[in-house]
């Protein structure tokens, strides 16, 4: 275990965090069982825990986490209802896991017997779900006998609609559908059926209601009334074309005399959700969920520790003692009212402050090696397990990043690694058939560029196949119509998406990539993906070097002072009004032989403009495009500390944060990137001031 000691602490820290998160979320789930976002979050935490324990080689821990994850999977797919009975089993697992982590911390070996209790309980549940016996929690057991397509309690209004349609030359059918009990995504099947039928007619009444159907919260059967111009046989065959449909029963509406609907009978059970608009609205639902997840409040980071080189600490102490000396001198000089001595001492104080600042930043810096060094072991173990031959190349592991960033980096990287190992690199025989060397190569590299660090994970595997992704997305009920190839590739970041055919121990449950993106964005970074079929996939993560202090240009617009991050600034030029030309609906400026778009900060921010002839044009370069940001006055360059602003103000998408200036006032930091790109996409006018809540 010696080789693990470097990241053992990291492992303990993260395990504690994840276990705490799981405990909290599961408790919350008990009171809010329908919350899919919560289940997804739990799933991710469990998945990370599993990944980390597997990386560290703690098989006992991996085993119990995997089993526990199965339970969450049952919740997610609707095979099990969340009841306190199952929650207790999960808590049992979590307690066992905490105990395991404690044992590891004390240096004890884990025993298989430690997890036998909870495992036995899970086995019982698994048998229930996979076997014939109906799950106790499910309330609708009636329909297990015969497929039913009758609607004995039909609302009078619905009957009117149906009758009107029939008089209008349409056919009305009552249809019962039974989905294959083995189907993993019942909700998606329902969606496909509805989508298919929606093309040729209208679905009038659905039982159970659409929300439950969509969530997969039903047994195997559902029924609905369908109005169409198509014939009975056509309808039946179009449903039958959808896979994982077990049985279909299509009859003309009102055929079964025993269950003839009585139009006069008043019924309370039908809800507005059963009407057609609800069905039409379903494609939008998964997207909303995805967005909701990103807004999910992240738990505040727990107490973290950092190991510091003693030399650096000594230096720290030296500087601080020097600072105390100059403070005393300052006090003395101010008592004597000697301006010269004050200035003299201040100079020293200011030099010492910047030294301190550098030092503190350095102390917070950590080599990415801390995270990278765990991967060789993981690649070896996993490639053996998968029967793949993989070489891992690591570059730039001495690159330094802020400690908080490094600590948070391991989770997304584990996900990406698992993805590359499992889905990216092919089996040796397959590689050979494609004319590639039997051995696959994964390259992990870190590199500093300006005040950003780029981390890339590159594999020479099969790449993302847009066709396969499209097919898989459609099976899951995600509409890919009108998407470009790049957009389709980005679907792998969609929550609940996985291109792998089967669930494996390594990855492929469809959690992970969306979590990766969420994490990177949370760290203030950007994420990019390029992929080519049979050539490979490259993931690039761009992270800020430090999170708190940047060089900035202070500018004035109207009466307000703003800060602009200096890293994007190419140069600053003095501009007079007649140098700006209007072309179409965009003002441009001739810069180094190019015409670059001009953005007036006062217009962008809706600040009353000033009638001045000479302004300052800040030329910024974003990726390969130049923009000119016009400001009224230039105040100078300064190192500023970034302070977070309210999420409400962050949503305006114009400010990176705020900073406190020398005189104690607050200045906003312009998000030049967002401002320029909003113009590029033509959305600038759409993002107006927010209205009242």
């Amino acid at each position: 275990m010696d080789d693990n000691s470097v990241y053992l602490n990291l492992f303990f820290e993260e395990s504690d965090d994840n276990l705490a998160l799981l405990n909290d979320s599961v408790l919350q789930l008990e009171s809010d069982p329908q919350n899919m976002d919560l289940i997804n979050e739990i799933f991710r935490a469990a998945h990370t825990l599993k990944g980390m324990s597997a990386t560290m080689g703690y098989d006992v821990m991996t085993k119990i986490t995997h089993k526990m994850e199965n339970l969450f999977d049952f919740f997610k797919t609707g095979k099990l209802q969340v009841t306190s009975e199952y929650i207790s089993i999960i808590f049992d697992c979590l307690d066992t896991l905490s105990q395991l982590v404690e044992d590891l911390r004390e240096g004890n070996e884990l025993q298989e017997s430690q997890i036998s209790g909870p495992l036995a309980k899970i086995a019982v549940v698994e048998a229930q779900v996979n076997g014939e016996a109906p799950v106790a929690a499910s309330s609708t057991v009636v329909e297990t006998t015969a497929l039913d397509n009758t609607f004995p309690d039909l609302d009078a209004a619905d009957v009117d609609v149906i009758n009107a349609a029939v008089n209008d030359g349409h056919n009305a059918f009552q249809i019962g559908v039974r989905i294959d009990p083995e189907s993993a995504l019942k909700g998606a099947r329902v969606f496909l059926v509805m989508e298919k039928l929606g093309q040729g007619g209208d679905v009038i009444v659905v039982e159970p209601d659409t929300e439950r159907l969509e969530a997969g919260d039903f047994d195997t059967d559902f029924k609905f009334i369908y109005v169409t111009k198509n014939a009975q046989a056509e309808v039946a065959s179009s449903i039958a074309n959808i896979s994982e449909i077990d049985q279909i029963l299509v009859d003309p509406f009102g055929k079964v005399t025993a269950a003839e609907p009585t139009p006069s009978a008043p019924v309370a059970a039908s809800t507005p959700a059963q009407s057609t608009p609800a069905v039409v609205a379903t494609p939008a639902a998964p997207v909303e969920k995805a967005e909701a997840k990103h807004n999910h409040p992240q738990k505040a980071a727990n107490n973290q520790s950092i190991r510091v080189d003693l030399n650096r600490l000594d230096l720290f102490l030296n500087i601080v003692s020097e600072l105390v000396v100059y403070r005393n001198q300052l006090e003395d000089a101010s008592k004597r009212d000697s301006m010269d001595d004050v200035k003299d001492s201040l100079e020293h104080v200011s030099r010492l402050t910047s030294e301190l600042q550098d030092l503190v930043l350095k102390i917070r810096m950590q080599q990415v090696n801390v995270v990278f060094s765990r991967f060789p072991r993981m690649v070896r173990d996993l490639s053996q397990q998968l029967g793949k031959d993989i070489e891992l190349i690591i570059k730039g592991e001495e690159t330094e990043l802020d400690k908080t960033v490094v600590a948070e980096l391991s989770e997304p990287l584990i996900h990406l690694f698992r993805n590359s190992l499992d889905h990216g690199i092919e089996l040796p025989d397959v590689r050979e058939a494609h004319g590639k060397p039997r051995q696959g190569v994964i390259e992990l590299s870190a590199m500093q560029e300006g005040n950003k660090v780029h981390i890339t994970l590159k594999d020479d595997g099969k790449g993302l196949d847009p066709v396969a992704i499209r097919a898989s997305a459609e099976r899951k009920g995600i509409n890919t119509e009108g998407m470009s190839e790049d957009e389709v590739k980005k679907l792998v970041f969609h929550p609940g998406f996985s291109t792998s055919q089967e669930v494996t121990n390594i990855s492929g449950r469809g959690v992970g990539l969306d979590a990766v993106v969420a994490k990177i964005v949370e760290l203030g970074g950007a994420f990019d993906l390029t992929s080519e079929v049979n050539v490979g996939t490259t993931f690039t993560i761009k992270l800020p070097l430090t999170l708190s202090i940047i060089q900035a240009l202070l500018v004035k617009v109207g009466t307000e002072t703003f800060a602009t991050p200096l890293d994007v600034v190419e140069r600053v030029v003095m501009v007079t009004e007649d140098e700006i030309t209007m072309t179409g609906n965009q003002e441009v400026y001739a810069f180094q032989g190019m015409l670059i778009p001009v953005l007036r900060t006062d217009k962008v921010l809706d600040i009353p403009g000033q009638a001045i002839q000479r302004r300052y044009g800040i030329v910024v370069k974003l990726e390969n495009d130049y923009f000119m940001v016009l400001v009224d006055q230039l105040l100078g360059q300064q190192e500023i500390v970034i302070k977070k602003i309210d999420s409400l103000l962050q949503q305006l998408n114009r400010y990176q944060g705020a900073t406190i200036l020398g005189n104690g006032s607050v200045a906003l930091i312009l998000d030049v990137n967002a401002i320029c790109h909003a113009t590029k996409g033509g959305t600038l006018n759409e993002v107006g001031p927010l209205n009242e809540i």
Partner: protein
Amino acid sequence: MQMILFKMNQQHYLISADTVEEVVDTIAITQVPLAPKWVEGLINLRGTVITVVNLATLIGVAESATNKNILVLNHEGNRKGLLIEEVMEVLDIEDQDVQLAGINSDSHFVGVVAVEDVIADVIDVAKLSF
């Protein structure tokens, strides 16, 4: 429960003292262009940047001529400033003293309390802009 009594434009209001972290005198507020109009701006509270909400604009009552105080609220770890005219005093209010509770569930007002010789509206922070 303890509540803070404050006034705005001759009207009196009450807010639960649990949620109020501190009361500060109004300091320089930096405006935020494009923000909702009830966002007064940002202040520097001992090195932390806090959003200040103009209570009068938020709840749709006439603005006071002067705003002397900012109530610093803490709602589940999120801090916000609430710009008001002036804090009067801290009072002990029993739950049963709150009348007309729950009449308008959408509103920021959760009831009315008659204290001494004035009538004060009770304001709920959770329903404020958090």
